[in-house]
């Protein structure tokens, strides 16, 4: 699979990464190599094999629906780059542009 700089740029956008052109040019051949290597999995007969998403069988774990103390608000906000009135502040979501 040959990966172009355009493909890398598209996927980077999906992952919310803004990549400069020189990074895209460096990444494209590296990703091609890695995905070409991964293509050996296409050569194996895997029809009907159950996929493994986890090493052991897991079941959902539910706790009792009881109110317990949670992280205090001041601690939860202590690492926020910007906070106001007990909430996290972010740049404009709807107005002011910068959209995808």
């Amino acid at each position: 699979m040959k990966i172009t700089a355009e493909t890398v740029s598209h996927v980077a956008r999906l992952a919310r990464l803004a990549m400069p052109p020189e990074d895209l040019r460096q990444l494209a051949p590296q990703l091609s190599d890695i995905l070409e290597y991964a293509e050996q999995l296409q050569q194996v007969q895997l029809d009907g094999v159950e996929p493994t998403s986890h090493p052991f069988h897991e079941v959902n774990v539910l706790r009792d629906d009881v109110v317990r103390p949670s992280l205090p608000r001041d601690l939860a906000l202590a690492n926020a780059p910007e906070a106001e009135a007990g909430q996290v502040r972010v740049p404009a979501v709807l107005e002011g542009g910068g959209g995808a």
Partner: protein
Amino acid sequence: MSGKTVKEILTSIRQGETKSRDWVQQSLSAIEQIDGELKSFLLVDPEAALQTADRIDNGQASERALLRGVPYALKDNIVTKGVRTTAASRILENYIPPYSATSAQKLEAAGGVMVGKTNMDEFAMGSSTETSAFQKTANPYGKEYVPGGSSGGSAAAVAAGLVPFALGSDTGGSIRQPAAFCGCFGLKPTYGRVSRYGLIAFASSLDQIGPFTRTAEDAAIVLNAICGHDPMDSTSARGQGEIDFTEGIDAGVKGMRIGIVRNLPEEGLDPAIKAAVEEAIRTLEQAGAQVVEVELPHMEYAVATYYLIAPAEASSNLARFDGVRYGRRAEASGVIDMFERSRSEGFGMEVKRRIIIGTYALSSGYYDAYYKRAQQMRTLIRQDYDRAFAHCDVILMPTTPTTAFKFGEKADNPLQMYLNDIYTIPANLAGLPGASVPCGFAGGLPIGLQILAKPFDEKSILRVAHAYEQLRSFAWQRPVLGVAE
């Protein structure tokens, strides 16, 4: 080997010969003296460590505390309340966690004394600790060589004798490979043996915390303190009960069945490593172990499988670093722009590379061809081990195909770097416990023997490793960077 063992320190403190303060002071002095060149620590807090030591010396920890007074270090992806934790990434450069990881809490409760946080590959993505955003850690056996990764700082600190033990995390070999490169013991427990709560997630179905020590017995002592089910990690294993991993460790290998792999992929395997591992197997056989051949037919696909699954999980886990609630935030006019710039400025190239591979493998149109096929191959790899362990108690093979490489040697070729993980990756895919124990030197650099066992059978690994440590007869070399005996 450099420095004292956990067992020696514990015995001395318990008998009242020494105090915790003596050992913590010794550890801090060694760091002061050696770490300027070794660069294994990202943070050292001498004052806090000495205060903790004094509290323990003044009777805060019970006489029976599992690690009473013993100094240790934590890999910097294990969060510590009030102590900066960065995962060696710019995006978390100033992050002060509001809580501590369960493993960190357990070590504290056991009376251990944390002296600092160790360097690593950024978000544990790498095999050389070179992707750290902050510094390059040297290999104690040669300043121009990498310590391995991603837990390179923890491995180097233990091998150089700066601390008697340290915790690391292993997603595809990140404990075992640096242990092999630095000449110390490294144990990746069974997936679920140790809680991942507070371990900054890389690939959640593969990550596991474990110890670096000088001996197998020390690893057993540390594992006793950190293992167990945790309600805060639903993937931690239930029903572990009260286990003592030191119990039966000196039972010897007589009658144990040791599996060696027929048709082990040997491309790029250093002949000196092959010879050292064969010698180790002969040594165990002479001690009464029975050697049997096993097959792992899908092992050759492990690297391809891993380098789709791990980046896919990483791309999802690292979506949380968006500049909103914590971590670096870039100046921007709109919120999407802010996400993109914060992430682009905050993440290094290897992390971006993996996020992009993972996003690609999960994206519409490629999911079936890449991610799903990798998950199916994961099933076959798991089944290979199930079958193999029907015939043996442990499987032995090299930990790595080569000894430590030089800085920059593989940094420009990610695929070459990934192929180095061939022998360690399968254990993560199958959830198995595995360890690396030093089994010789080549060109002055340490060689690691890898020991794998079936899920939750760390005891067999520790028993074989302990027996081998008593039997091994090669000349032990001293690290260039390390404390004097």
